[in-house]
């Protein structure tokens, strides 16, 4: 099959990659700068026998995709900061009922209405902690559009495999920029689907795990299993319980699904970190500028290196700790007033000097600004 070369915006890439991953249900609500994802899905899904609906609000969109997921269909929504805030309760619901789904957040300036047509990266912490209660999410932050294509597929794969909502963090730059790349063929990626039960319905418990497994087999509605899903704390049968031991253990298992599968979930890029004295940590579109800054510094004889988390949640603590041991200082560059830097400080676990190169106001952190920060600590 001849590869197709395209010049797509990030939002278009996100939509097309989702379809390639098997997504056949999208529910969304218009919000800048994510709306093009909905537009593409509204055009393409019916062509693929899928379903698109523009719901009456962001909360409804999140509810609809969970309903579709429980009925057996890979589903997705897309939004930006204010919508992401609205969706939080239902994101927590997806965690609790362990419904696979993907939420793309094309970040913009915040908080509140913020800067709708300008980029930001200030929803990072929210992607991890936005909803109440002990829960875990997975969040991916690609930096290049060709990478975004694979990361969308990986988002669906992770959500199916671990029965967890997966958030893909873009920003207005990535969403609206265009890059030329060749669309990957199906040979270049695998598709993972949820594991369905093989036992007969009478023996099925929707949240039962055996033999050291952490992820329950997932039946779909209407296949004879007639299970109950609720946001209340529940036992393996799916019915509500207030038994403290059962509740505690079930929530521990939900977190362990992610914490004990780091090898499969973690992903990052390292550029010239082997001998880096100044480690630059950055993600998403800011990391592109950080990459330039690192190259510039190397030209000038400063041993800078870039650590770029691609999976941002769970945060790659161990990698940061490893690199922090060798480095003299860390510069964390991000389009917010200090969010990934908090994770870096936590993970570094040492007295190493850590400074932030932080900017809000809707314009990207530029390479020269990162260069200046590197010089400060070099």
């Amino acid at each position, binding site marked *: 099959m001849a590869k197709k070369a395209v010049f797509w915006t990030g939002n278009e890439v996100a939509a097309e990659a989702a379809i390639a991953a098997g997504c056949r249900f999208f*529910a969304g609500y218009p919000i800048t700068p994510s709306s093009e994802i909905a537009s593409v899905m509204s055009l393409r899904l019916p062509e693929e026998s899928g*379903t698109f609906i523009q719901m009456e609000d962001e909360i*409804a969109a999140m509810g609809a995709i969970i309903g*579709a*997921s429980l009925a057996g269909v890979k589903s997705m929504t897309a939004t930006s900061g204010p919508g992401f805030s609205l969706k939080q309760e239902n994101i927590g619901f997806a965690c609790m009922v362990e419904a696979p789904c993907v939420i793309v957040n094309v970040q913009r300036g915040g908080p509140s209405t913020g800067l709708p047509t300008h980029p930001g990266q200030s929803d990072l912490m929210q992607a991890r902690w936005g909803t109440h209660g002990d829960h875990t999410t997975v969040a991916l932050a690609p930096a290049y559009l060709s990478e975004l294509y694979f990361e969308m597929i990986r988002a669906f794969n992770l959500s199916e495999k671990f029965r967890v909502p997966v958030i893909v963090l873009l920003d207005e730059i990535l969403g609206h920029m265009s890059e030329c790349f060749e669309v990957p063929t199906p040979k270049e990626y695998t598709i993972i689907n949820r594991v369905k039960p093989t036992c007969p319905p009478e023996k099925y418990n929707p949240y039962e795990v055996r033999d050291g497994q952490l992820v329950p087999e997932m039946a779909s509605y209407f296949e004879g299993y007639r299970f109950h899903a609720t946001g209340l704390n529940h036992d393996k049968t799916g019915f509500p319980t207030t038994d403290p031991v059962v509740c505690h253990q079930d929530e521990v298992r939900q977190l362990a699904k992610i914490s004990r599968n780091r090898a499969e979930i973690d992903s990052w890029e390292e550029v010239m970190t082997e001998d880096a004295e100044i480690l630059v940590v950055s993600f998403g579109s800011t990391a592109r500028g950080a990459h330039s800054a690192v190259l510039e510094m190397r030209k000038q004889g400063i041993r800078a290196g870039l650590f770029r988390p691609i999976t941002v949640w769970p945060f790659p603590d161990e990698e940061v700790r490893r690199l922090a041991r060798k480095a003299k200082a860390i510069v964390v560059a991000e389009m917010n007033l200090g969010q990934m830097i908090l994770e870096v400080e936590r993970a570094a676990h040492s007295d190493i000097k850590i400074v932030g190169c932080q900017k809000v106001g809707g314009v990207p952190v530029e390479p020269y600004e990162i260069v200046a920060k590197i010089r400060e600590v070099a």
Partner: protein
Amino acid sequence: MAFDYTPYMRMSKLPHLWCPGCGIGIVVKSLIRAIDRLGWLKDDIAVVSGIGCTSRAPGYLDMNTLHTTHGRAISFATGIKLVRPDKHVIVIAGDGDMVAIGGNHFIHACRRNIDITCIINNNNIYGMTGGQYSPTTPRGAKASSAPWGNMEPCFDLTNLAMGAGATYVARGQVNNGVQLERLIRDGLGHHGFSVIEVLSNCHTQFGRRNKLPDPMQLIKHIQDKTVPKSKAEKMDSAELAGKFVVGELFRDADRPEFCDEYAKLQERAQAATKKKAAAPVA
């Protein structure tokens, strides 16, 4: 011969958690009888609820059940129905859940005319959270968040549904199980968005604060304020003041149903793609 509810129930979960005399059990039984009369299979039915006493109902039904977030049942149900339009999707929730926090989803489902049946157990109160007033609590009634008397006017849920575009709208009452079963059955069988409001009794929270603490007192009060549709048609507005008309209030079988329309859209999209692919390259 007798009716057997047990095949439709998760019997090991009984006795259910509702107060002695609570109308919700009556509504659930009417729903079961309606489903039985239609000959529907349990595997083909999804029952979705929000949060509140009424929303605990799906847990007792041996069907595909989903207990969602407060007010959001209809949005989850919409997702289920859109991906499985061949299946039966029922939403059951209370007045606060459905038309306060859930109001937006309610009116848009009416507007879309999606083939979902929505049963509202209207007991004029937020029962589970301790008796706060809801958008259907009568003016002047006492509630835990209205100790000086509710000063807000209340919705007429059937008017709201009709105004928003629902194509089957009915009002039943807990004291008439035969009528309620028929109204629910007709709503389930109707191909479009069906709303059945059930005038119901929460004597524990609403009744107790409003001089109607016993189930039968409150049920008689409900009976007294209702008027059958056939009789109401002959009454003037003065006579109807303060009364609730019960029966099938509105039906339109001709309005296009949402999933049907989307299927046509899919066909158009696929035909256009095929045509484009077959067209000679310029």
